[in-house]
């Protein structure tokens, strides 16, 4: 039946995978509260749904496996069986196999091959049936493996999670929408805003409008603004589900390595652009692998160091001035400075005998070539170097940094833009071009007083702003466009800041503040530094959006005589 109806098939797949995600999160919570009736129901119900849908649509194998698990879960929720480690492992394994089977439905329908997990499924079903049989035998006490024995890793308590999910609240409904439709909608709303602002700004209109018409137009503007805000908010999703994926990872990795690890997270309700959420999953996983592999020590070692045997990994997310801040912190042994330095020398990244500050050594792990296949352990497995992680995050217009205290732990700090789609910016003119400087990077703007401008070899290179001396750079110079020939005192200096560094950018004049839709410039311009993307301005033309960090890197590269700073200060660790 699925063969005849691809849309039905993809709906089934999407919903089933959704359910499996919920199930997995609930099972991990179940590990610490095996008798929680609500949780047991939260796990039973979706299995029942998957079984039912699969049966109706003729997906026999999925139905069979789901049914076997459903029977086991029914014993649990009726109190005949208390789920212990064996039951939990079995159900998690079933989730994995079902996920594989369901993910393969699409490819198989398209004529391709799927992964053969049926033999493994048969084995699992036998095991589950054995567990169910033990429960079904008459007798007073609920059976099941003792949940208090052998509990090497604990699933996380999720303190901030409300008992009833938002979706269960009365009156709150959700619909599934094809993301392409959503993107199209958002693009069209963006165009509507631009078209409207061109119209609104047209001198012929302004002259012809009487008071009533002007009010109507203002109303139209308001509605369009609301429409745009709503469209944008549809792209935002909470980071919670990404964090929940990590729980499973921590549990599995911890077990594999014989380490006891507790994962704690907060700020799950923090919302990000859907795309960012998708792309941040892999980097977060790599960082967590890192923590578990190199950071958290085995229980014996921890106890010798006076720490509790269970290590702790903390994931937090919060909003911070136009950005989202995510941290991954562990209380493990911290970055081993001597070993890192040794490895870096081995790999030729650092000359022998060089003396580096702890911050500089920390930065070494981000260098390409630092971790190679040789050092990849059984856990890191498919691990990639931290350089790839950093690049991935930077491609999302984010930053990642690391700080560590030997013996106490390591912390990764990630900063990401709230949404890749919209940015509030200061529109500036330089030469015959216009640029957008994101307001979150702007500290202030001022007219340089001649006495505050310091020259080097005849050219204005530094400016005094209150007590600091900042590099002064002409934007037209930096980007190689025709200068306007104005002197600094006739121009405006915009002080930008990024990651603790500051710079004063000289522009011809300020043109106003604007919220602009960010458009990627595309793969052709990926290498361009100092530019974060393009903005469609009110008149339909493109204005480049500046990337403060990139602007400063560019300036530094040109050397101190251009106002740049000597290299060790660049990108100092937090």
């Amino acid at each position, binding site marked *: 039946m699925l063969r005849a109806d691809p849309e039905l098939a993809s709906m089934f797949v999407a919903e089933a995978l959704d359910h499996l995600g919920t199930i997995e999160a609930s099972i991990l919570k179940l590990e610490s509260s095996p008798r929680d009736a609500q949780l047991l129901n939260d796990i039973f119900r979706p299995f029942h749904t998957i079984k039912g849908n699969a049966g109706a649509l003729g997906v026999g194998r999925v139905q069979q496996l789901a049914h076997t698990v459903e029977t086991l879960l029914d014993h649990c929720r009726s109190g005949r069986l208390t789920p212990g480690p064996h039951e939990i492992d079995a159900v998690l394994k079933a989730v994995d196999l079902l996920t594989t089977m369901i993910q393969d439905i699409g490819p198989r329908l398209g004529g391709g091959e799927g992964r053969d997990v049926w033999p493994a499924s048969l084995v699992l079903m036998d095991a589950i049936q054995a567990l169910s049989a033990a429960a079904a035998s008459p007798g007073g006490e609920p059976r099941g493996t003792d949940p208090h024995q052998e509990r090497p890793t604990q699933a996380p308590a999720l303190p901030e999670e409300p008992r009833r999910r938002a979706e269960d609240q009365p009156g709150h409904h959700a619909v599934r929408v094809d993301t392409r439709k959503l993107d199209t909608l958002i693009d069209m709303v963006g165009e509507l805003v631009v078209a409207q602002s061109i119209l609104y700004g047209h001198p012929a209109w302004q002259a012809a409008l009487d008071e009533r018409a002007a009010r109507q137009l203002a109303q139209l503007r308001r509605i369009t603004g609301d429409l745009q805000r709503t469209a944008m908010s549809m792209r935002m999703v909470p980071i919670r589900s990404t964090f929940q994926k990590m729980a499973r990872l921590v549990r599995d990795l911890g077990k594999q390595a014989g380490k006891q690890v507790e994962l704690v997270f907060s700020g799950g309700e923090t919302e990000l652009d859907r795309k960012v959420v998708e792309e941040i999953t892999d980097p977060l996983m790599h960082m967590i692998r890192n923590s578990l592999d190199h950071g958290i020590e085995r229980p014996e070692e921890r106890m010798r160091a006076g720490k509790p045997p269970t290590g702790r990994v903390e994931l937090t997310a919060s909003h911070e001035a136009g950005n989202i801040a995510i941290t991954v912190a562990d209380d493990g042994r911290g970055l081993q400075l001597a070993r890192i330095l040794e490895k870096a020398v081995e790999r030729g990244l650092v000359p022998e005998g060089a003396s580096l500050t702890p911050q500089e050594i920390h930065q070494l792990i981000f260098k390409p070539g630092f971790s190679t296949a040789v050092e990849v352990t059984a856990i890191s497995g498919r691990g990639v170097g931290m350089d790839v992680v950093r690049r991935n995050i930077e491609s999302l217009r984010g930053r990642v940094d690391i700080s560590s205290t030997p013996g106490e732990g390591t912390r990764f700090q990630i900063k990401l833009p709230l949404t890749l789609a919209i940015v509030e910016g200061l529109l500036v003119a330089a030469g015959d071009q216009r640029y957008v400087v994101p307001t979150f990077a702007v500290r202030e703007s001022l007219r340089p007083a001649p006495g505050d401008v310091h020259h080097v070899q005849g050219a204005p290179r530094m400016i005094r702003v209150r007590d600091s001396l900042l590099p002064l750079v002409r934007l037209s110079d*930096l980007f190689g466009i025709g200068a306007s020939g104005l002197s600094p005192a006739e121009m405006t200096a915009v002080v930008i800041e990024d990651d603790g560094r500051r710079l004063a950018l000289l522009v011809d004049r300020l043109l106003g503040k604007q919220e602009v839709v960010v458009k990627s410039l595309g793969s052709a311009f990926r290498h361009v530094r100092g*530019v974060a993307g*393009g903005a469609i301005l009110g008149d339909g033309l493109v204005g480049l959006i500046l990337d403060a960090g990139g602007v400063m890197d560019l300036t530094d590269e040109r050397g101190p005589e251009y106002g740049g700073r000597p290299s060790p200060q660049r990108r100092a660790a937090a």
Partner: protein
Amino acid sequence: MMQQPDGARGGGRLEALPGKYLAFTLGNEEYALPVLRVREIIRMMEITAVPQVPRYIRGVINLRGKVIPVADLRARFDLDEQAYTERTAIIVAELAQADGVPLLMGVVVDAVSEVLNIGGKDLEETPQFGAGVKTDGIVGMAKSRGRVTMILDIDRVFGGDVAENGRSAVA
């Protein structure tokens, strides 16, 4: 000044060439692109400059909400620069990419001529010329309407990944 084209790249390619082409001019020379690779033709418009790119990449424009790069074919072929006229046009072409999603790119040309139906009998190999070649991407010559039209492989003219061109040219 006639730019010397690259040497022929294997006779087999000529067989794949017959079809419909959009012909356009740069000065006195006529070139053509397969219509399948032409998304649309638009009038010349103001281009926003982008730094750190080779001279022939003029910058970006807004194409109904999408920001696309624009290249100047005269500059790419090292021809003398000429002022834009009201016949100057931007051909929005599709470049093939590794991931299968075509990259849209605007190409500035002096004027767009017409759509040609080029048959096998009209086609000839590009003659072998000496070294010092600048124009990659001319894959054949067509004789039609009493003149010669040079058939371009747009992917070769601008490189499969325009970013590669950008980096190497700037370095």
